[in-house]
């Protein structure tokens, strides 16, 4: 049972789309969001057509079914990331909310320090900037090397006894870099700091085992892992989540309410105020089933092959500079680059004309763009259904772009 990408592509109806007659879609914007297999869309539709009800508070048949399906989604996610306890899995609206939840509830005060890295997505930077502004804590960061890696020489200087939280990205959405979680987490642990790992770009592309990672909390988002929009996940160690105060207040997250005051529900409900993303949890569960069926190691191997292929092909393009690691070691399949003298906007626009969808801009990682002296990059990124033919289409598209502006 080898990895049959042609068969896999049949599961994704959108991949058959022609943008214009004769111009098929070449979707290389997977780091922004992934496409969804029919299995995921069917699961959500079935939920709505057969079992739709609000969860938890009802005893009628639909409410019981909806609750079982919603909690079933949680069970699947817990197994997928090897959580020690299903109560450690909290559904949020996206990664960003999960990271904000941590930044709002982890205790911080004047004199405390929060450490991030210079390659963070804004969603794992701005919440900590806000937290520091609110609490009087200080934000520090680990810099980057010229070849797109964390500057580990910074570790001992930046992470100190005053560090309370180290928040960093597992795989960079801009550079593709996979960070050495063990090294950073060990250093953080040695000073008693909490670690929050942004797994938005890792969980969709490699097997992530939270018990092996050695961090205190992770965040990820369904829409990048073949699941629907509208749902993300916070995983956190039970003892940590138990200590934290609630984040949003409202229905479902309470134990006992009087006008004078309230007490909080058990985990994970303490952090799930209001009607949760029910159909979305069902869809995420189906996405997890889909990924598990293909096998995360197989997916990773496939994407690694594509990354090797793409890095080589792109570096053969005259005037093209990779922003990030130039080899496929410790790196995922999101590849940013600059094309000499041509602005990414123009690159993206002309590629789109040929059906090739890439992302251009700062990719919500502006500080890292500044670090590498580019206002923006063009980024191509693969997923489990991507092919070498798509990489070829990208490269021939880039030749076209260059000819267009050289004419």
């Amino acid at each position, binding site marked *: 049972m080898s990895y049959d990408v042609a068969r896999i592509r049949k599961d994704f109806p959108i991949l058959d789309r022609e943008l214009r007659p004769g111009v098929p879609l070449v979707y290389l914007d997977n780091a922004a969001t992934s496409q969804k297999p029919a299995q995921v869309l069917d699961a959500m539709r079935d939920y709505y057509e057969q079992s739709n009800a609000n969860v938890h508070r009802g005893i009628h048949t639909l409410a019981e079914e909806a609750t*079982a399906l919603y909690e079933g989604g949680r069970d699947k996610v817990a197994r997928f990331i090897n959580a020690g306890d299903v109560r450690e899995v909290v559904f949020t609206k996206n990664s960003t909310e999960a990271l904000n939840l941590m930044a709002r509830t982890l205790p911080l005060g004047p004199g405390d320090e929060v450490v991030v890295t210079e390659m963070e997505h804004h969603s794992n930077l701005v919440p900590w900037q806000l937290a520091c502004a609110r609490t009087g804590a200080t934000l520090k960061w680990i810099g980057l090397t010229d070849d797109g890696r964390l500057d580990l020489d910074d570790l001992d200087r930046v992470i100190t006894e005053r560090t309370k939280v180290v928040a960093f990205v597992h795989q960079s959405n801009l550079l593709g870099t996979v960070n050495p979680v063990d090294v950073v987490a060990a250093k953080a642990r040695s000073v008693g700091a909490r670690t929050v790992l942004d797994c938005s770009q890792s969980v969709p592309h490699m097997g992530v085992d939270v018990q092996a990672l050695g961090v205190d909390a992770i965040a990820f988002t369904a829409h990048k892992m073949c699941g629907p929009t509208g749902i993300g996940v916070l995983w956190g160690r039970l003892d940590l989540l138990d200590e934290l105060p609630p984040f949003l207040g409202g229905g479902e997250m309470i134990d*006992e309410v009087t006008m004078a005051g309230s007490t909080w529900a058990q985990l994970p409900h303490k952090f799930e105020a209001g009607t949760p993303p029910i159909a979305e949890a069902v869809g995420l569960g189906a996405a997890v089933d889909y990924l598990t069926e293909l096998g995360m190691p197989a997916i990773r191997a496939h994407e690694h092959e594509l990354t090797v292929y793409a890095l080589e092909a792109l570096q053969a393009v005259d005037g093209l500079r990779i922003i990030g690691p130039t080899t496929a070691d410790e790196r995922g399949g999101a590849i940013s680059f600059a094309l000499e003298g041509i602005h990414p906007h123009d690159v993206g626009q002309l590629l789109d004309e040929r059906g090739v969808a890439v992302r251009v801009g700062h990719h919500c990682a502006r500080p890292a763009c500044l670090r590498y002296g580019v206002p923006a990059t063009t980024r191509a990124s693969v997923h489990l259904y991507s092919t070498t033919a798509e990489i070829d289409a990208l490269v021939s598209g880039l030749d076209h772009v260059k000819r267009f502006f050289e004419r």
Partner: protein
Amino acid sequence: MSVPSQSTPHLDSLYQEIILDHYKHPHHRGLREPFEAEVRHLNPTCGDEITLRVHLEGSAADGWRVADVSYDSEGCSISQASASVMTDLVIGKDVESATAVYDEFLTLMQSKGQAEPDEDLLEDAVAFAGVSRYAARVKCALLSWMAWRDATTQAMGGSTA
């Protein structure tokens, strides 16, 4: 996707005659003295409430015996009947044996209708087997048991049985 329960089993398996009997004529009801611990437990979803007292005899060294369990409660037929059955089962037993019943009942309730209950141990409580199929009602059936367990632990001075 598989829909969990396309067909609900007939309700007679939930509302057993034994349950309705205990509901209408609860045993050991009311709050009595003496007691070493009193707890109040609440099921926030449905408003079921119980205040429960435990009176133990014995000591950590010689072992503890459940001398009395008294309670005042409000709630649905399942939670009311469960409290009544529970007191029947634990009063007079040593804490260790009562805890074994508690464990067995807990297992039954978490079985989603799959367990074969131990009739010798559970007696009237086997009538609750059907309840385990109704996720939302399991909490009702467990409310008094959880309260008993909590109060008993407190009465023994925080040590677990």
